[in-house]
Structures are given as C-alpha cells and as structure tokens.
C-alpha cells in the first residue's frame, strides 16, 4: 500500500471524526399494559409511523425510542391486542407515552401486515434475512448496487459504469440462482428491460435480502436467495422530485406525484438516467490507458397508478408503465467498439388487488397480475473494426454486409417477448397461533426472436419462436407460540414447467429445424424457526431442500450455437442456516444490534455451460458446497454517532468427485470455486446533527464507509505462477446530506472510491476510479 493511499485514508478518517454536537432529539418512553389487569405486555411493537422506526417493549412492558423533534403517530401493535394509535408532539427532550391495550383476536391480520412492513420485524422473523431501510443509507448511495454491496453476505459484480450489467452474489451464489423481486413480483423474467440497479433509491422504502431460503409467497424458484425491493408507500398527497449530477456526465432525474380524492388515489412517477460513463480505464491485458467513449446509457421510465378503496376489493390498483433504454456497447478487450448498441423498450400493465375476509372470515386474498411486452434490439453491423492501438480492419462479406464488431457475425437482433404473470396468494388465519398460506405463481412467456442479418450471412434461419410455461405452488404453515417466543414456518413447494421450441441439428446438412417439447416437475421443502429467549435476544434456524428451475436461456438455448436442453433437470439445493441476533437499547438510549449467522449449502445438479466442437449446451453436472459465516454490528455509539460493520467469510468448494460418466477423479475436487470472493468486509460511520448551520428544521448527516475484498482467483487455483487474479481492493466512500424545512429539501454530496483504487470486476472489467456526485431533492407531502 503506498504512502499516498495512507495519506488519503488519514484524510478520510480525520474528516469523519470531526466532532458533532448533540442533535435536537426527543426520547419517547413509556409502559404498555393490559387494560384489563394492568399487567405489563412484553414484546409489544411500538412504531413511529412516519419514521418507520420501531422498538419492542421489555419484560416490564417498558420501551424507549429516540426521534428527532417533530410530530408523530405512535402505534402500539400486538398479536393479541387492539392496535392503539396516538399522535404526539416531540419538542422536548423527553416525552412519556404509555398505553393500555384491550385484547382482540381480530387485530391479528393487521399486525401481520404491518409487521411485515417493518424492517426490524422482518429481521426478527424466522427466515435468514437482511433488511436495509433507505433511511439507513440514503445520502451515501446513488444506486441499489451501492446499498447491496454494503451488506453482509452480498457481493456485486458490475461490468462497468451506470447502466452496465451487474451480478448480485448472495453467499456466493449468483445469476439465475438469485431471485429479483419488486414488491414481491418476480423480475427475473423481465431482465431484458429491468435491471435491479435501475430503480432510483428515492423510490425505495427498503431492500429485503433473503439468504438461502426464499418465502414461497414470492413465487418462482431461487435457491441462492432473493432480493426484494419494496417501493415506498406514499402519503395520500405527495410530491417528490430530485436531480443528481455525478461524474462522467451522469444525470438522474426522478419524480413522483400522488393525489387522492373520494377514496381513489392516482399517482405518476418516473425517472430519467443519462450517463456518458466516460471514465478512464486500462485495457485488460494490454498497455493502453484509454477513456471509455462508447458507453453512453439512457433510460426513461414512466409509470402510473390508480388505486381505489371503493369497490369490492379492499384495494384494487392498476399500474401501467413504459420503459425505454439505450446503451452503447463499450469495447473492453476485443475491439474499441465504435458503433454497436442495444435498445430495449417495454410496456407493462399490472393489476393488483387484495381482499380481507375473502369468502370467509380470516381468509385474505392477494392478486398480482401482469402482462409485459418487450422488444430488445442489438445492432452490430459495422464494416470496420477498431483496435486499441488505432489499427482499423475492414470486416465485410462479399455482399457488402458489415460483419460487426462483436463476435464473428453481424447482428440485427429484434427479439419480441410477451410475458403474462399471475400470482394468487391466500392466507388463512386459524387463530392467534396458526395460519396457512397458499401461493400460486404462473408464468407464460412467448419469445419471438429475429436476427435477419445474421441469418443472411449464415445462409439459414437460426432463431425460432419459443414458449415456456411455469407454475409454482407453495403451501406454508406458520406457527406462533402463545408467548410469542417461538415462530415456525414450514413450506412445501411444487414446480411445473414446460417449453416448446425448435432446434437445428448441426449434423443435419439441410438445416431443417426439429421440434423440441419438454415438460418437467419437481418439489421443494423448507422450514424456518425463530426462538426469542428474551426480548433482546433470539436465535434462528432454517433448513431447505429446494430446487432452482432451469431458466429459459438454459432450456431454450438460441436454437443454433447454444442447443436447447430439454432434459435439463432443476438444480437441487440442501441448505441450513443458524443465527443469533442481539438487539438492545440500553438505559442511555444507545442501541446495539449484533447478528451472526452460519450457513451451509450443498448444491447438486448444477447447471453448467459446456462447449462442444461447434455447438454448446447447458448440462447438469456440477456439485458445490458452501460453508460460511457472517457477522454484522450496528450501534448508536452516542446519540450523534452511528457505527456499523460486517464481515463475511464463505468457503465454496467444488464437490464433484469424478469426471462426469467416469471413474476419473475430479482434479479440482474440494478446491475453492474460482471467481467468487471468499472474504469481504464493510465498515461505516455516520455522524448527524440538527441545525448544524443554525436555523430550524435542518438536519446534517455525514457518512463514510470502507469496503474490503480479499484477492481471489479467476480460475481454479493451481500454480504459483497463476496470473488471473482479481486483486485485493479497499475502497472508501463518503457522503454528506443536509436537509432543510423539516426534511422537505435535501442536498447531498458524495465521493466514491476516494483513494482512486484501481478496481476490477471479473478480472477484466475495469470499474470507475474516484468519482463524485451532488443531488438536490424536494419532498412535499400531506397526510390527509
């Protein structure tokens, strides 16, 4: 590590530890008792509605929570008692709010719904889960990847700047093994036009990261885990607009508007992102240091929604959305690409509805229906290819068709896709202890690919229409003990999928396609439990025996170079997780959260890409074991200083003993799986103060964080002379957020990768160096 890096680190540390005075805050405290017998109620939820912040009562029924000065709604929620809501004004150092609750079974469902919307409740449920509320990180991050990268067990592998493809790895598993959901609706099917990183952070309430086990109610199959982005629920009248300017000519504009009238709400929201991504990079494996100049990215999304509380459903909402994006393709290794670009457009229509006491008392219905039509285009028709040393080569067919800059043939890809998705969720509450949930997720997709120029050059058709149907049904029984110490969720899932497409057999010299039609089914089981020893301490344990269905890409191939693989079986996972969580607010009102988890996963029938002489195919033949641990600490060290940190060690090993169909031992048996980080950590600091610059209703927050990833190998580790390594990286980020007029106006500054560390992803994908951003955001809301 160089002296310059040390100097930069010292600067950052000095900057971060600048002392801050105590901010203007109120300590709300009180006692919650049973109205009938005046006995204290332990484990009661106490939630500040506006802040989405909460705590629980201790064994004596007492609680305390610190909030900034303001006016709030405080909710007392419990499984067995009626909810009590109180409006309080916090303009003093201490406010006492106590409550006497009346017993009621009816409140159970409400509690369940509200509890699920609270980060802490989620963290305390039986599933292994990390929950990040945007309140925690807003101001330090400019996109979701920044948020996820700071979470234990998660690594992000971006391939470039804004708009570039990125892969989320949860405990070492990534890609198709990780589910991506927005408000519990699966987005993996829509990866042509939605990327997890697209969604502006201002629109997000929280991010839930399920590790190893994914609740059946989400639908789909994802054995590695799932990321669920929960969008904000806005007050009835609301406006939120922001603009940010970042390095590399990056502009982001976001807006949300919402009104209500006569129990009908209408909203409109969207965003526009533009970036030139013109950062400097060193071309992998070469000497050239260049500025990326063909990496422009544009995305525009506009969505609306009309929600009614009037009709038969409790809520029914229709949400149309349109998305347009375009991206130039930046050459990295092959050529200095000058012309190739991709575009994707999509139209999405979603209908959501829910009804409590559907058909019978205690049965709740949730419906999620969506249809999307997308068009993905890749245009790569250039006649000339530009090398990194300035050399230009003409690549053209005898007919004058340019062969493009990517691969060996030109492309005029025009892939159209229709996807229909239907999810039905039925939840029946038997009593305060038992509930049963049934979930059905059906997906139908029809692909209509086309690449006329490629076909013209090859002399035959290479893309064929395909259809794929999948249905997942899940049944979950939830048990909550009377004393609320034990929670258990047992689930059973059934999977069905079928695909139809056509394949050109390469051995068929006439190139006549054959019909491919395959159907399969499978099942999965899981159980998760949580036991709370005392209000501040609980343990979790879970196990699952589940599958990940092959994706359409794996099953359908591309009809030519990647052959369809109709016999592909699902990947089978056996996973265990055990964890403990300690969450304590002491008498000095300092909160400490410590969570540790150990995990084990054994993956069989891994789907791997295998190349043949000319044609490739996906096959089942891998086995992998992961064993790891992660720890996370968050603490309000003082009432102006918040510290957090996490560390993850994951040991992923190749467990295939023999070569497929052979007695030959696998050379890499028990070797560390390559190209997956195995040791990484994050730490962060936040200092906050109200009215730092004088005046009223202002709040200032200063953030800093540091991410560490140990060096790892791109290939299996074999030789002491091995060159393909992803170097160790230590990166520092810092941010400043200042809000005015009681959090109506936000101004923020960000500096990422402050020490200008050379960061490489995938061993050959250079990422941006030091970069900056400024942002202004205006929020207006009215609760009525």
């Amino acid at each position: 590590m160089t002296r310059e890096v040390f100097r930069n680190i010292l600067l950052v540390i000095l900057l971060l530890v600048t002392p801050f005075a105590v901010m203007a805050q109120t300590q709300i405290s009180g006692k919650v008792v049973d109205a009938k017998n005046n006995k204290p109620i332990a484990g009661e939820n106490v939630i500040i509605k506006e802040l989405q912040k909460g705590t629980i009562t201790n064994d004596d029924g007492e609680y305390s929570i610190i909030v900034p000065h303001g006016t709030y709604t405080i909710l007392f929620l419990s499984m067995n008692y009626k909810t009590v809501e109180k409006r309080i004004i916090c303009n003093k150092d201490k406010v006492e709010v106590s409550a006497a609750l009346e017993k009621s079974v009816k409140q159970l469902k409400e509690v369940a719904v509200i509890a699920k919307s609270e980060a802490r409740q989620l963290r305390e449920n039986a599933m292994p889960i990390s929950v990040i509320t945007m309140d925690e990180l807003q101001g330090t991050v400019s996109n979701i990847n920044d948020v996820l990268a700071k979470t234990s067990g998660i690594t992000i592998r971006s391939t470039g700047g804004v708009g570039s493809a990125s892969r989320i790895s949860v405990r070492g598993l990534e890609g198709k093994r990780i589910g991506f959901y927005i408000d519990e609706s699966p987005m993996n099917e829509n990866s042509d036009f939605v990327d997890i990183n697209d969604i502006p952070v201002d629109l997000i309430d929280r991010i839930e990261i399920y590790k190893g086990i994914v609740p059946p109610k989400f639908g789909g199959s994802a054995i590695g885990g799932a990321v669920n982005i929960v969008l904000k629920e806005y007050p009835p009248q609301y406006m939120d607009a922001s603009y940010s300017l970042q390095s590399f000519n990056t502009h982001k504009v976001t807006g949300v508007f919402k009104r209500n009238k006569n129990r009908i709400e209408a909203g409109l929201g969207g965003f526009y992102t533009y970036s030139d991504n013109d950062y400097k990079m060193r071309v992998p494996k070469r000497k050239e240091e260049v500025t990326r100049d063909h990496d422009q990215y544009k995305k525009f999304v506009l969505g609306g929604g009309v929600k009614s509380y009037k009709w038969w459903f409790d809520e029914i909402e229709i949400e149309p959305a349109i998305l347009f994006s375009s991206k130039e393709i930046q050459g990295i290794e092959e050529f200095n690409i000058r012309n190739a670009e991709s575009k994707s457009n999509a139209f999405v229509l979603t209908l959501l509805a829910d009804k409590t006491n559907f058909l019978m008392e205690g049965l709740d219905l949730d419906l999620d229906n969506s249809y999307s039509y997308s068009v993905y285009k890749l245009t790569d028709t250039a006649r000339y290819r530009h090398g990194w040393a300035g050399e230009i080569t003409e690549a053209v067919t005898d007919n004058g068709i340019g062969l493009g800059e990517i691969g060996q043939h030109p492309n005029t890809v025009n892939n159209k896709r229709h996807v229909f998705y239907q999810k039905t969720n039925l939840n029946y509450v038997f009593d305060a202890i038992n509930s049963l949930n049934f979930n059905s997720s059906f997906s139908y997709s029809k692909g209509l690919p086309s690449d006329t120029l490629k076909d013209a050059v090859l002399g035959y058709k290479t893309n064929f229409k395909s259809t794929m149907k999948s249905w997942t049904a899940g049944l979950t029984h939830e048990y909550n003990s009377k004393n609320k110490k034990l929670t258990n969720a047992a689930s059973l899932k059934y999977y069905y999928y079928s695909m139809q497409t056509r394949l050109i057999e390469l051995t068929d010299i006439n190139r006549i396609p054959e019909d491919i039609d395959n159907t399969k089914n499978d099942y999965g089981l899981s159980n998760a439990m949580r036991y709370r020893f005392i209000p501040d301490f609980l343990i979790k344990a879970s196990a699952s025996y589940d599958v990940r269905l092959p994706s359409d890409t794996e099953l359908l191939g591309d009809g030519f170079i990647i052959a369809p693989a109709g016999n592909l079986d699902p990947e089978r996972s056996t996973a265990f997780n055990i964890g403990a969580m300690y969450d304590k607010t002491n008498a000095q009102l300092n909160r400490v959260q410590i969570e540790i988890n150990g995990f084990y996963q054994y993956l069989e029938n891994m789907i791997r890409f295998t190349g043949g002489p000319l044609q490739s195919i996906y096959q089942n033949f891998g086995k992998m074991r992961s064993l790891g641990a992660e720890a996370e600490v968050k603490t309000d060290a003082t009432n102006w200083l918040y510290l957090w940190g996490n560390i993850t060690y994951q040991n992923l090993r190749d467990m295939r003993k023999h070569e497929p169909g052979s007695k030959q031992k696998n050379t890499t048996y028990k070797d560390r799986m390559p190209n997956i980080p195995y040791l990484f950590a994050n730490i962060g600091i936040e200092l906050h103060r109200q009215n730092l610059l004088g005046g009223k209703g202002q709040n200032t927050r200063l953030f800093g964080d540091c991410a560490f990833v140990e060096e790892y190998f791109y290939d299996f580790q074999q030789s002491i002379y091995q060159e393909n390594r992803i170097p160790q990286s230590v990166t520092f980020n810092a941010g400043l957020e200042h809000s005015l007029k009681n959090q109506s106006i936000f101004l923020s500054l960000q500096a990422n990768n402050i020490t200008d560390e050379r960061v490489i992803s995938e061993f050959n994908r250079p990422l941006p160096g030091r970069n900056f951003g400024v942002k202004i955001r205006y929020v207006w809301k009215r609760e009525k």
Partner: protein
Amino acid sequence: MIGLLGISLLSCDNDDDAPEVKDEFGDILLSSMLPNPDGVSGSAYMQVINNIDAAEYDNHKALPSSYSVPPIVIGNDIFIVPGWSNQSSTLEKYTWNNGQIENKGEYELPSNSGAVDVVTKGDKAYVSLNFLGKILIINHQTMEKIGELDISEYGVGDNNPDPAIMLVRDKLLYVGLNQMVGGYAPDPARAKVDILIVDTETDQTVKMITDSTSGMSMPTKPEADSKSIFMDENKDIYINCISGFGFLGQKSGFLRIKAGETDFDKSYSFDVTQTNVEGDEFSPAYLLKVQYAGNDKVYATGNINERYSVPEPNYVEDRTVICLEVDLKTKSLKKLNLPGSTNYGMSVGSYKDKMIFGLVTEQDAGFYVYDTKTGEASTTAVLKIAGYPGDFTHFGEKY
C-alpha cells in the same frame, strides 16, 4: 476501519512473495487444461518432465499457457498464442534450454487477433491472425515487428480468409485458409480447400491454390493442432481438412501437395468419412489431431458423430473420440486398442517409438501410451496430470 486496514495490510504482503525458483528438468513438455465452471473460460499450464514412467503430476509449478491453443513447439522454441479466446493478447516465447523452459519475451498482438499458429524461418516468425485476415511477421529473437501481410483479398464469403495453421517448405510458406463465414464454420455449400502460398524471401503472396474436387473444406485445424499441416520425409505436404469440425456433411481428411509442387496433387485425396475403420463400426467425421510418424503412418484421434447422445449431445460424457493409426499410402484406418475419449482429451504426440495420446476416458484421464513397434497399448493413463490432458511434446523428435 482500522481493523479493515489491518486485514488489507496483512494481505498485501502476499504481493511481495517472490516466485519460487523452478527446479524441474526434462525433455518432455506436458500441458494441461482446466475449464472454469462458467464453461467458457479456463486455464492451461505447461511443465517439463523427464520420462514417461507412470506418474501423477500437478500444476503447482507449471507455467500458465493458452487455454485455446496448446504450446506450439518449433525445435527448442515454444510459442504461446491466445487463439480464439480473449484471455490474453500477447504472443509469448519460451525456449527449452538445459532441460528447463525459459521465458524469452513477448509481443503484444493487435486487438482480437485470434492468433492461432506460429512458424519460423530463421529469425522470422509468421503468426496467423485468424480473426483479422492477416499474417504478422516478427523477429522472434528480438520480438519486434517486421511487417504484416494483409490477405483479405483471398477471403471467400467475406474479406477474411481466416488464416490458420501454416508450414514452411523451403522458401515458401503454406497457409491453410479456413474461409469461415459468420461463425466458426465455412459455408456448407462451398466444399473447397484453399491454401495460400507466400514467398518467405519477399514476404509477398505467390498465389492461392484451391481444391474443388475432394468435397472437403477448412484445411487445417485452427485451434489445438499446429501439426494439421505437415511434411513427410519426401517433403510431400499433407493437409488435414476438418470440414467445419465434421458437422457440414462434407468429406474430410487429407489432401497433398507434392514435393517441389505448388498445386494440389490431383491424384491424392483421402476421405476419412467414407473409409471403414478396422476395429470400429463407424468412420470418423473428421480427424481432431494428427501426428506424423514416418513411413506414411499418421497417428490421430478421430471424432465419431454417431456416438453423440440423441437428441441432445452430452459433451462431457459422450466418448466420441477414438485413436487411430492412419496409413496415408493405403488410405486405411485402424482403431488402436485405446479407450474412447470425450472431446476434452484428443491429443497425440510422439516419444521415440511410442505414441502418447491424451484422453479423457470412462476410467481415467491422462496420457495413454501406444507402442508402434509392438502394438501394445496401455490400459490406463500412464501420465496423469491435474486437469484434462493437453499436448505431449518430446523435444528432439523428428516429427
């Protein structure tokens, strides 16, 4: 934060580790390859060993090589080229000296060159840039560029004739032109074989010769077989034509350019696809790798398309590769008593009177030994190596 810095600093020490001094000696160059779980990328290694006694070798002190193309050995020189993969952009040169291999330098190739072969004529080295339609000429002593030959005008279907494996006979350079269009196979409708002839004194092209009668295409195997064009003791040149890796329904096999000639020998064509194999019910769709052994004998691996699983091939289990003794004169094929292999094991090299086959069989993977004098074949892999067997080269062999 301090804690993290500690981790970082401790780990930084690894960067300063000096490589261990290599202490292996021998006259055999052994290479291996290991695919990554992504199925696209992988790693390859080379090391020297000193005999073919039964042994197992790991890659601990092996040098990284090219995942696409095994080391190209010319005399005592070893060249490493990136091939079709983009895992490297350099041409590296090593020399076998006193039983060890030493790095002699590298040359940075043009972007996405697809360099697949190197041949030398004195200090000059010719490098075929398969993706660019060019032949690069460098001084392989100084590793500096001398010039390049743009041969785009010889492209058929497009302006890149796809120069592949080369051979120097006397003062002429013979270059196999793959003539691929839009992918990794030639136009199925064009069953023709093109060879470009270059004068190595002037570094000017002499002419392109075309065979239109054999029904074959794609002369020389662009990746993995630098011996797919070779010269016998009579200076006759034989060219292994792989016809789109045997997937175009064309004939495949050998064509010949006789000594002193610069045109195809019209009297000679050896179609292996229509030749019965002694000891096997099927004929190969093409020959994967060839090793000339003198006296018209070639030892080769052949691919039997009929042994791919139906309807979907299983590339990691289908043992489609058989070992063959080929007689160029009688145009006959005889299957050797060696087990079938997947496409991950297909190499053949010579060690005195023995042929060494790198195979991935149902029972093991590694290098099998076939004695050309006695006809005895090892029943198991004699040399085992970590990963799949790459090439076997014994320095000093005539062919």
